[in-house]
Each structure stands twice: as C-alpha cells, then as structure tokens.
C-alpha cells in the first residue's frame, strides 16, 4: 500500500502509523494539519500520565498482595490446625465414655452464604464469574487504567511511545504481577517525553525491574554480606541493561564489563515485605550488599561510592553513542518498517546524540521525517495495537454486558489469545517488533474479529466502520468485499480483517 499526499489520507495515516487508530470523527478532526495535531499531543501537559488516583504505587500493590497472601495462609494454617485437632480427638471420643450431654455451645457452625438461597436465577445460564480477590483486582485495575489511556487518547501517539518504551524496558507480570502496571506508570510514563537517562534510572531503581532481573538478591563478594558468607553476584540485570536497555548486543562490552557493572549494581535492592510493613517492596540501596571500591567498565574507572556509582554508570550508558544507534533503530523499526530506512535511523541517532537523549525531540523528529509520511504501509500492527484500533473505532465495544466477563477481562483474554498478553513478554527483550512472530496469529485474529462483529452487529454499520477507521486508506477491494458480505456480521469481520487495518 503506497501513500498519498491527500490531507485526509495523511490524517488517517497519522492516526494509524503514529497513533492507536481513529475514533469516529478523528480523521476529519486532524485533516487540516495532521503534523500539527501530533505535535500538539506531545505538548499537552501530563499527556503521558495516568490520572486514576485510586491506583496504588507498585510497592504498595505488592505489599497489599503480600498481606492478602499472609492472611490467607494464616487462615489456612488455622483451619488445618483445627482439622488436625478434630481428627486427633475423634478416636479419643470414640473410646471415651459417651458424654452425658453434648456441649452444644462449643460447636462452631460456619456461617456461609448459601449460593442456592442467594439467587433463584438460573445459575447455569446467568453464571457470574467469581468475585476477583484483591490480587486480581490490583492487576485488573492497572490493566483498566492502561486500556482507558489508550482508548481515551485523541491520536494515541504518546500512548504508542509509552507502549514502545514500556516494552523496551520491560518487566513481566509473570514475575511481578502486582508491580507491572505500577512500573509502567512510575518508571516509564513520567519520562517518555523526557530524557532517556532519567527513564533508565527510574527503571533500574524500580523494585519491579530489580526483582524481574534478579538484582535484588545480588550480593557483592567483598560486601559486608558477602564477607560473612552470603553469596553471590547475579549478572543478569547488568547484562540485560547493556545488551537490551542501552548499548545493544555485540556493541563492544566484554564479560569483564558485565561483571564489573554487576558489582556496581550490588545493593540496588528491595525492602523485604515481611519486615517492613510501611515501606516493604520499595527500592532501597543497601550498602551491606554493595561491592566496595572502584570498578572499571569499558575502560572508564568509576570511583563513586554507594548508589552514586551505579547512577554514574547508568548516566554514561544512557548517552553512549551505541545506545543512540540502538534506540534509534528500534524506534524507526517500530514506527515505519521491519527494515527501516537507514536515513531515518541515522537522523534519529543524530538527534539523540545532539539532545542528550531527549525523547520528546526524538518524537518530534519522527513527525518531521518524510519517511513517516511516504513509506508504504507494510508494518504489521501487533495484536494490542490491532485490538485497540478496533475498540477505538467502535465505542460500543466499551459497553459492559451484564453476566459477561468485563471489558478488562475480555481485553486481557484477547491479548493473551493473540500471543501478546499484557505486561507478560516472553523474555527481557520484550515482545518482538517485526512481522515474523505475529503473522501466523492472523487466523486467531479472525476468530476475534468474528466475536467482535457478532457483538456489535446490531449497532455498527460496516460502511460507517470502514469510513471511521480507514476512510481514504480503505482499498477498493476492501470496500467491495465489505459491501458484498452476506451479513452485517461478516461485513464487520471483513473490515476488521482488511490488510490495511492490520498494517500501518
């Protein structure tokens, strides 16, 4: 699919390539000045932040979940103890002479809500999912905030940047289920339009990252803890910071650099939940774990003491020229094509160096680059982009249906089914950002498209849908296929499966 200079075409292109897809009226709203609209979104105060004040910090969420588990465990232990006691008593009772009077007042009758009494409704049909526990609520509330940010954004350029950086510096909810959402809000969002160095620092000093990549238990061999026999140094985090977060693989660092950097990072840990009811799960620098003395990394000696040593290394890594190249390539690949135009990568690299890693300047460079407006639409949307574009195009999808899983749960299920479960990348390098791993999921996308089409067929006109979300991008073949569909449901499914809706 090639591009055109028609303003409406450019508006629709901007909404898909930079943003999260048009909502009803979006294309017309920015058609007079698509570039200006993108820049305006970058300038909106607090645009990258989540406004939901009810969300707890990552550390607090983790603590809340921890206490919940403690309580549950205590209940279970108490219950088991009681059962054991009863079991122990039963044979004695059998052997003992029959009690003269049954002591009725020591019999505990559990007061349990009777599910049958509670509802006369046909439970087989109107089955409600069980009430989520506090742990599930933490995750779902974070997921909801994440989805709402994406659905609300006018264009979604900033959200796309959030997603990009969140995936670049990813943690996994498989390891830190109650922190993953808070991590994105605390370490990523405040900095997506700020300096990369600050984001890297926030990420590296976030408990979610330190737990995810094992640094919280890394102990310097010559640290106080190390000297009394506690072992060992964990290189995982140091390696991933160099290989994934900053310089990029095979960019000149050695195994010795990794070990030295790992020593620098010892002491970057998390306050244990069990012993810190107030500040448990928060980041802390623990000097008892920290390897003392200067370290040499890539030829430079770091003489700083304590936590500042790590901060100094991170600051240098953040502005390293290999980091600039690495990030510029990833950014260009994400926004334009699996094989991005070298001139674009070069321009972004240069801009990163010139501005000391100012990410807002990089975003503006994207907007100003002709490649973003000329390149053919070959980039395959990842499942979360495709699902979000669908949701934005059809506000009716946001309606909750009583007795059915909530939109958040369905959104999570759909992402999982398509292989991109929210905040659960398969490895520390995040979800892949090229077509290869995703194209085979097309058949699953069709399944989802059919479910969605069924759900909205009463309220969505397929032709309107095509205009809302693709408008001038819609190819004649697509229009014909939608017009000739044998049902409204099929027409909607075809529109959602149009090649130009999968690609941007």
């Amino acid at each position, binding site marked *: 699919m090639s591009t055109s200079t028609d303003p409406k075409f450019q508006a629709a292109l901007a909404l898909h390539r930079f943003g999260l897809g048009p909502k009803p009226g979006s294309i017309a709203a920015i058609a007079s000045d698509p570039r200006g609209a993108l820049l305006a979104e970058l300038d909106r105060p607090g645009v990258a932040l989540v406004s939901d004040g009810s969300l707890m910090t990552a550390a607090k969420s983790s603590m809340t979940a921890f206490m919940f588990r403690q309580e549950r465990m205590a209940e279970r232990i108490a219950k088991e103890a009681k059962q054991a006691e009863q079991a122990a008593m039963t044979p004695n009772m059998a052997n003992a002479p029959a009690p003269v009077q049954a002591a009725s007042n020591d019999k505990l009758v559990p007061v349990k809500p009777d599910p049958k009494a509670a509802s006369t409704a046909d439970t087989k*049909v109107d089955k409600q999912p069980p009430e989520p526990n506090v742990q599930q609520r933490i995750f779902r509330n974070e997921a909801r905030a994440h989805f709402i940010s994406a659905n609300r954004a006018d264009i979604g350029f900033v959200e796309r940047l959030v997603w990009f950086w969140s995936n670049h510096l990813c943690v996994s909810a498989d390891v830190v289920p109650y922190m993953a959402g808070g991590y994105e809000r605390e370490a990523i969002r405040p900095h997506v339009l700020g300096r990369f160095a600050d984001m890297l620092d926030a990420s590296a000093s976030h408990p979610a990252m330190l737990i995810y990549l094992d640094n919280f238990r890394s102990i310097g061999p010559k640290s106080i803890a190390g000297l009394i026999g506690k072992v060992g140094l964990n290189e995982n985090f140091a390696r991933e910071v160099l290989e994934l977060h900053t310089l990029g693989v095979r960019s000149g660092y050695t195994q010795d650099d990794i070990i030295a950097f790992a020593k620098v990072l010892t002491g970057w840990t998390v306050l244990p939940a069990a012993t810190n009811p107030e500040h448990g799960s928060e980041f802390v620098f623990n000097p008892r774990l920290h390897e003392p003395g200067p370290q040499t990394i890539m030829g430079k000696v770091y003489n700083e003491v304590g936590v500042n040593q790590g901060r100094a290394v991170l600051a240098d890594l953040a502005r390293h020229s290999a980091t600039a190249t690495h990030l510029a390539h990833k950014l260009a690949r994400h926004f334009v094509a699996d094989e991005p135009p070298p001139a674009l990568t070069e321009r972004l690299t240069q801009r990163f160096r010139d501005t000391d890693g100012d990410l807002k300047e990089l975003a503006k460079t994207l907007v100003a680059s002709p490649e973003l407006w000329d390149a053919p639409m070959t980039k395959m949307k990842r499942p979360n982009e495709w699902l979000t574009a669908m949701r934005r195009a059809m506000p009716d999808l946001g309606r909750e249906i009583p007795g059915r899983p909530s939109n958040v749960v369905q959104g999570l299920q759909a992402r*999982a089914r398509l292989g991109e479960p929210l905040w659960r990348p398969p490895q520390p390098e995040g979800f892949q950002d090229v077509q290869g791993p995703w194209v085979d999921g097309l*058949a699953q996308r*069709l399944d989802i498209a059919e*479910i969605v089409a*069924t759900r909205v067929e009463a309220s969505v006109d397929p032709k309107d849908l095509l205009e809302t979300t693709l408008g001038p991008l819609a190819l004649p073949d697509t229009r014909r296929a939608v017009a000739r569909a044998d049902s409204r449901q*099929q027409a909607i*499914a075809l529109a959602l499966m149009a090649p130009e809706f999968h690609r941007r």
Partner: protein
Amino acid sequence: MTLSLHAPSRRELIAASGILFAWPFLPRVARAEGRDPRLMVVVLRGALDGLALAAPVGDPGWIKLRGDKALTLEGKTPGLPLDGFFALNPAMPNLHRLYKAGHALVVHATCTPYRDRSHFDGQDVLESGFAKPAMAASGWLNRAFGTIEPEARIDRKGALGVGPVVPLVVRGPSPVLSWTPQRVAPASEDTLMRLIDLYQHSDPALARVLQGRLGLMHMASAGNMDALTPAQREQVAGVAAVRAYFAEAAGTAAKFMARAEGPRVGALSFNGWDTHIDEGAIDGRLGNLLGALDGALAAIETGMGPAWSETVVALVTEFGRTARINGDNGTDHGSGTVALLAGGAIKGGRVIADWPGLKEGDLFEKRDLKATTDLRGVLKGVLKDHLRIEDKALASAIFPDSGAAAPMAGLLG
C-alpha cells in the same frame, strides 16, 4: 500466580447462527382451542438461490438461463420431482419425503417488498417486517409475541438463557430467551474464503497464512482428521461438521420446543447462503448446504416427536439470486426466491407460485426471478391460522403497511 485467562470458546464465535431464540410463554387462545401449536422460524442469511432449491424444470427458459448448471429431471444427479413443473434439489430427500407426505410446501417467486439487493437492508426488511429498511429496532416475530395472550410462563430451568446477540426478527419489547446448541459451530469458511480472495490482490503474505488454515480445513474434510493436532482440529470444519451442526442445532431446538414445558414460538438462523463464486447447486457448496438444511428439517421432525403434527417450520431468506449464472459460476444478489413451510400442521404437497416466467422480459430488471408473491402474506397466513393472531394486528403492529399483502389462506391443513 497467573490470572485465569480462558480463550473465547468456539461457542462465542458462532454468532447467532443455530441459536434458538424463543418466547418464554404458552399461547393462551390456541390452547383454549385444544391445540398446542409450535412455530419455528428459520432465517437463512445470505440470500438463498430459490431456483437452485426448487428448479422450474417445466419452464422452457430454464435451461437457457442456467445451461449445464440447471437442475433437471435427467442426468447424473436428477432433481426430485415435485409437481411436474418444479423439481427439488436432490440434496434434499427429506424435504421431498415431507412434501410427498403433505407435510411441506414450497412458495416460489416470493420475496419481501425489498428490491435493492443489499444483504443488510434485505435482512432488515425480512426481520423487521417493515416495508423499508432501518425503520424499526424490533422484529415482526417479537411484535407478534406481544399480541399473543400469554398463558403460563414456560419453565426455563437448565436450558434457556439470554443470548449474547439477539437477531432482529426476535428483538423487541417482548422477553426472549435463547438456547445455544452444545455442538460447536463450524468456523466460517465463507469469511475465510473472502479474506483470502481479498488478500491475494493486496497482501499476499497475509493470504498465505489464511491459506494454511484453509488447507487444514480441507485436510479435515478429506477425512484426515487424525493427521491434525488438536489445535488444528479446532480450527477446521468440513462439510460433515456443517451438517452435524445444522442437525444438532435444529434438532435439539425442536426437542426443546416439543417438551410440555418448553417454548412454543422461536426462531433460529443459518448463515452462509451467499453463493457468488462456484455456487455448486447440485454437487458443490450450495448442494452441501442444502443437504445440511435437509438434515436439519429431518432433525426437527424427529425432535418434535408427536408435536410435529402441530408444528409449522417457516424457512425464509432475505431475497433470491440472479436467474443467470455469473462469470464465477455463481449467482449474484437478486429478488424472487423460495420460502419453505414444513410441519405436520401444513397442508403440504404443493408448490404455491404465481409463476412469472423466465423469459428476458419476465425477469425483474432483466436479471432476477420476479417476486410475484409477497412473503409477508405467507407469514401473515401462518401467524393468523396457526397462532390465531388477528388481521388487524398483522396489518399494523406486526407487518406495518402490508395491507396489500393479505394473509395467505389455506396454508394449514
């Protein structure tokens, strides 16, 4: 810790196809007469080619129109004779048997008043009961519920629920419950074919992926299910799966309606009748679908049991298809088509048609079988004689502006 994330079930994929939507009451008047009538409306979405279902073999223009695609009484797979003029598609032996037994009739050259050939609008008119599209958010069957005096509410235990998507024909102010068949609906091969066709021109990489899935489907329909992984088997559906699904959905819905405490009036729909390419009326895709529909009719008869004698099944579609075969060996959207009435309550064994002829000048806009019978009159006749709904309600609330289409008399025996 992991959240329990269940993947959407195939059940959720099937749309409303095959789901029974029923009125949860017993009709008082009919029961007062000592009858216990059942009415099942089956909507065939996609525009069924009525000429392929019941071919006018006695019309001299027929062979000229369809050439070697024309169903005749001769050849390798001859049609099943109905009345000397029409022959039934050989894929429908059960319907033929019911016809011969006086339990089924065909209304030919019929259509709603809609003539513009858009599926959405055509289905809208068919289901809303209004003369024009997009005039109502409720369906004629639902409004018919509203005029039937209810007796006892039926027992909904264990089976009826509120469906996720209620088709327009039963949508509206009266309560509707749904029942979903246990069997899993086949994946929509038709949608898949259309997407492959779409991708082939614009995005070959995507086409290859879906062709892979289609390949799995064909392996399955060739009987090589064992060669597939469970996940692959999930994705595929052959002819056998379609047949099984139609039969199970319709048959179990019938069993349900046959029960003493079951619903009496309901609707379901079957999709996939839009045969633009390689229609295969006799031994291809449409033939297979008609075979599946025939199996569904047999399953309804069996499922109804003794209640069959008081049953009317009305099978309707939004419009017909072009009288001629198109360049892709298919047919495009048309006008006149068939409606089928089956059931022990029907005075069957006949084809009801004010036959318009097939000469160029006889065809609607020189391309479609002309609709000479207003489908609303047929449905009104059924509602009137079977459920005792009054003329006034039929002509106003249920089928507004249908005064010209009087209830067809004598459909029931």
